[in-house]
């Protein structure tokens, strides 16, 4: 049985298929049809809900896509939907929540189908920022909400206008306080027609379960796995969610480097990671959307071994190690050796990814991480290039690279690394490096980009790298995502 709070109402659920999304449950089982299904793939944001989780000293509220959110992952959480933001009796603009009122007054809804999702992303902003945080933050938080009617201008205006009303108290505080104080089922699970959903609370429990059910599918934020359910209509007999395992949440920055728990979400780890490596900030802003970054995890991205997962190339360039564990012990694998083939890794059936370790940043490290995609925000990379080296006695040493979109797995360009090693960082060397690079890969042509574009862009990105390090040249267009 799992327990969670929906708006003001606690619910307990036993018998539901493990691959049921929060959205399907809301729309078909609970009568809460305010959240809309626009794509069922986490790309449009029409189903955006707010999920509250206890942080020990309070509750943290984040926006997520209900279509990718597996119901089981809601155990112990507070799910807020658009249906309950204002009283049912509210009919005039003045009676609405400031977020809603601002949207109406700015003419931010036309067909209205994306509107509930926008309202919830805006409500997330409202909860997390007591004052208007500026256009850049608004765009960062709303990049995962698509609107086809308005062209967004009135919505951007509403995000500012909503702060012009007297601030209202969180309408859910009382219900949340009560819910988060009460003891919950310590062994949450769901069962349905022989299918099971486990939500282990500790690493030993997780490893024991994975030992018992080696064929079980591991689930974290679900931002990739849920697509198998909603698009391919796939069923798994056993799902094991790792998101409640405390040992997988650690984020540490100390003399041994960075340790990032496999189940830590992007939202959790990016501040720490980017404090050390500000060069990666732009890539993380362009990775998915706020909703995806609030749910997606590093372990999930690596475990799925997608050729276009964005973090892996960066981790390769940073020489990261993955800590893997099973019930019998732990091992460490360099991230570059983790991927075997398209969506295949060295991870054994009974193993899980525990953490990513990044060695301390060398003082002379030069790093770049470039993502190129058709649309600036919330798009999958056509090409991702990460490159790092240390300057030692005027030459490049310890050159590490990582590429996304260039091969069946995230991959390093070893020829490029060898070529650059020991050479000075000059325009001529980087130009020759481009020649080496285009022979290092044989990328495919697909819907995102052609083979030629991938190769040419990679080469040009080396040129950008040189220009950015050496000259006062403008290398980026002015865009909210950059």
């Amino acid at each position: 049985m799992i327990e969670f709070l929906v708006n003001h109402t606690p619910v307990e659920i036993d018998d539901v298929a493990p691959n049921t999304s929060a959205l399907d449950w809301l729309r078909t089982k609970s009568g809460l049809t305010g959240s809309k299904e626009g794509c069922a793939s986490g790309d449009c944001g029409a189903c955006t809900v707010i999920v509250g989780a206890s942080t020990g000293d309070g509750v943290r509220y984040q926006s997520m896509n209900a279509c990718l959110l597996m119901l089981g992952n809601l155990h112990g959480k507070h799910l807020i939907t658009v249906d309950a933001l204002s009283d049912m009796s509210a009919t005039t603009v003045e009676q609405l929540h400031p977020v809603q009122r601002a949207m109406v007054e700015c003419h931010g809804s036309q067909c209205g189908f994306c509107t509930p999702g926008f309202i919830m992303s805006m409500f997330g902003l409202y909860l997390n920022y007591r004052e208007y945080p500026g256009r850049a933050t608004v765009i960062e938080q709303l990049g995962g909400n698509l609107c086809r009617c308005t062209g967004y201008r009135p919505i951007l205006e509403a995000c500012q206008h909503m702060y012009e009303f007297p601030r209202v108290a969180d309408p859910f505080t009382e219900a949340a306080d009560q819910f988060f104080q009460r003891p919950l089922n310590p062994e949450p699970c769901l069962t349905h027609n022989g299918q099971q959903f486990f939500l282990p609370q500790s690493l030993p429990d997780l490893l024991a379960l994975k030992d018992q059910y080696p064929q079980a599918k591991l689930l974290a934020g679900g931002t990739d796995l849920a697509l198998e359910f909603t698009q391919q209509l796939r069923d798994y007999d056993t799902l094991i969610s790792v998101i409640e395992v405390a040992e997988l949440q650690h984020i540490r920055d100390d003399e041994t480097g960075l340790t990032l728990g496999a189940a830590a979400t992007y939202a959790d780890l990016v501040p720490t990671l980017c404090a050390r490596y500000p060069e990666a900030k732009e890539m993380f802003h362009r990775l998915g959307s706020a909703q995806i970054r609030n749910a997606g995890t590093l372990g999930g991205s690596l475990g799925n071994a997608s050729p276009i997962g964005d973090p892996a190339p960066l981790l390769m360039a940073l020489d990261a190690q993955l800590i893997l564990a099973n019930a019998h012990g732990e091992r460490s694998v360099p991230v570059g050796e983790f991927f075997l083939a398209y969506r295949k890794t060295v991870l054994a059936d009974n193993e899980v990814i525990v953490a990513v370790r990044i060695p301390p940043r060398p003082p002379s490290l030069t790093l770049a991480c470039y993502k190129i995609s058709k649309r600036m925000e919330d798009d999958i990379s056509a090409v991702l290039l990460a490159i790092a080296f240390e300057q030692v006695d005027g030459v490049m040493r310890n050159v590490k690279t990582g590429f996304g979109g260039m091969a069946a797995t995230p991959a390093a360009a070893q020829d490029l690394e060898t070529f650059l090693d020991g050479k000075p960082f000059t325009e001529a060397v980087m130009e020759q490096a481009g020649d080496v690079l285009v022979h290092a890969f044989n990328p495919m042509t697909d819907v995102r980009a052609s083979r030629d574009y991938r190769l040419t862009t990679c080469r040009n990105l080396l040129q950008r790298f040189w220009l950015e390090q050496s000259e006062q040249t403008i290398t980026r267009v002015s865009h909210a995502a950059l």
Partner: protein
Amino acid sequence: MRHFETKLNPNQHNVVGTSIKHDSAVAQVTGRAHYVDDTPVPADCLYAYPVMSTITCGRIQKIDTRVALNCPGVVKILSADDIPGKKDIGPIFPGDVLLAEQDISYHGQPILLMVATSYEVARKAARLVQVEYLKADPLLDIQQAIASKDWVRPPQTFVRGDIDQGFASAPHRLQGELSIGGQEHFYLEGQVALTAPTDDGGIFVKSSTQHPTEVQHLVAEVLGKPFNAVTVEMRRMGGGFGGKETQAAPWAVLAALATYHTGKACKVRLARADDFRLTGKRHPFFNTYDVAFDDNGIVKAVDMVLNGYCGYSPDLSDSIVDRAMFHADNSYFYENVRITGNRCRANTVSHTAYRGFGGPQGMIMAEAMMDDIARYLGKDPLDVRMANLYQPGRDVTPYHQPVEQFIVDDMMHRLMDQAHYHQRRKALRAFNTKSPVVKRGIALTPVKFGISFTAQHLNQAGALVHVYTDGSIHLNHGGTEMGQGLNIKVAQVVAQVFGVDVSQIGISATRTDKVPNTSPTAASSGSDLNGMAALDAATKIKQRLIDFLVTQHSVDAGDIHFINGKVTVGKQHFSFKEVANAAYMNRISLSANGYYSTPKIHFDAEKGAGRPFFYFSHGVALTEVELDTLTGENSITRVDILHDVGHSLNPAIDIGQIEGGFIQGMGWLTTEDLQWNAAGELTSFGPATYKIPAIGDTPAEFNVQLFDSENPEFTVFRSKAVGEPPFMLANSVWCALRDALASVTDYRFAPQLNTPATPERLLNAVTQAQQWLRQHHEEVNHAE
């Protein structure tokens, strides 16, 4: 034709012309606005889903449904043999079979209908049907269709003047071509319909459609029932953009077929990926031009060929390619001209209506030509544009309709001044000289868009208005609300007539049993047609009230005024409620229907001549962009728009249409990249691979202003249509990107830039520009 008084009285509070919020805004922001899929369904409701072809072209050999039938929850599997009536649901011309019988014409084509007790089971079981095919080679290449003259409808030509003579006499001549991408509507609410049996053998349909009447007709015809046995209701769509004009019907008809065979309610809702695969897009086009011009860039002769990529059936392609032809002149006078439109067949879904309806694909050719002429002559493209504008004496379109309103020149000058075109052009050139990687571009382009359905009979509408005895008013009209604010605009018209607050007007769902024989809500015509029909209905009731008051109070009609919720009768004042109630007590009918048909329009398709459009809507846009020449990534940094909506019925709603239309056009021309593979499968079949603009793509500076004017034609309160025209303001984005590209060659050459101008196409164009520069450097060096 009745004529109505639609001049506003400046001495009263006018409802028309004010920025009233969308009537559903509160319901939308609270999640209470119901769309079809939100409708509570009966406990025994069934769910149906199409079984889709896995090949693109060929014949069905064998179908095995055994595995699917054994799935728990599967109720029935229906085929074309189960259709009691018409099997072809082509909206105008035949060619669209509801379920494939033998021939497969596009990838994903529905073959069977899986009916089950749940949505999940219906979708899963649909994938378990085994179909064996005999594959044939699909026709996917538009060049091949052009070469073999494989048309879904016959070609059309407009001719005016003598192009041979024009070509012979002009000093300069250029040829060009452009491959123009299609566009997925990406209405946020996908295709959906819910049907239920009525107790008298009829069918009740809830459909997310722009054309309830057509859905009504097709459901009836497919089921072999009279039209009066089918009622279609449509409260609101979660976006339409043309994608629900003809192509909402198949899903409603399929649901009705399942209801017919089971006697139960049934829902059909396409999952997003299948919506992408199964519904038509904006037509891709391949166009060519051959133009002759003088030293000032003034066009002397044009020969243009527009080839629309129609897909496997006619659908609306006849009118869509027509509209491309009607807009290939945009705002420019072509002294001698021939425009040919071809409707090419292809084994894809049947491409369909999409905001602009072919207009954008024609209009962009005019802009491509203006740019190319300017580069060739070394002029600023804006100067070439200005020189070619329609003006008195140079005022006849290629289809012989005279242009009567000349405001574009004024609008362009005004925008140029307000947005400092010349200063910015200068600054941008200076920037580009110093910036080797990032290049800036700028362009100011006009739009002239013809308003009226080009199928003349569609230019009519009906409305129904009731006044209740408490003074509240009920409004119903034949148009459909898809977010564009039609309902509130029409309500404003009715409120204006009665002099009451708009909150007194209740607007109900569009229903085929309330207002019959309606046209689709399309061609930007919604408020022009339905607003006038509602004005007619309201005016009839008002006249009855006036007649009644004249008799009752022995005053002149001229002494009766409906203002600010009050009715002044001579020196007496009554509330509107009192008057309504008194009229009822005196047995005056307080209900009326209204009707409108557009005057003046006619067109002879044989001759390619006439007046297809009642009037033109205009707009001008100035766009500035930045282009990264290393990656092709780009950004629209500033947009200034001045747009003509005549006397606006609702400025906020109109500005919303302009902003939204522009951004949608920007997406069409930049990131929205439809791709089919060599086998004919759509590979960009969801928002993960098909990228519409996101919030961060909103120009950092985005200024939209309404041009102060009134419609010289007699339209509802002298307003103008606004739905489609602003879409084409985005041509300025494409031209600005080409301007940035041209900067690489010091503005002497603008590389070919097919659309959408994705980073990849832009990077290829940069390479083209660099090659041109190298070649011409060599030429220069060689000469020295």
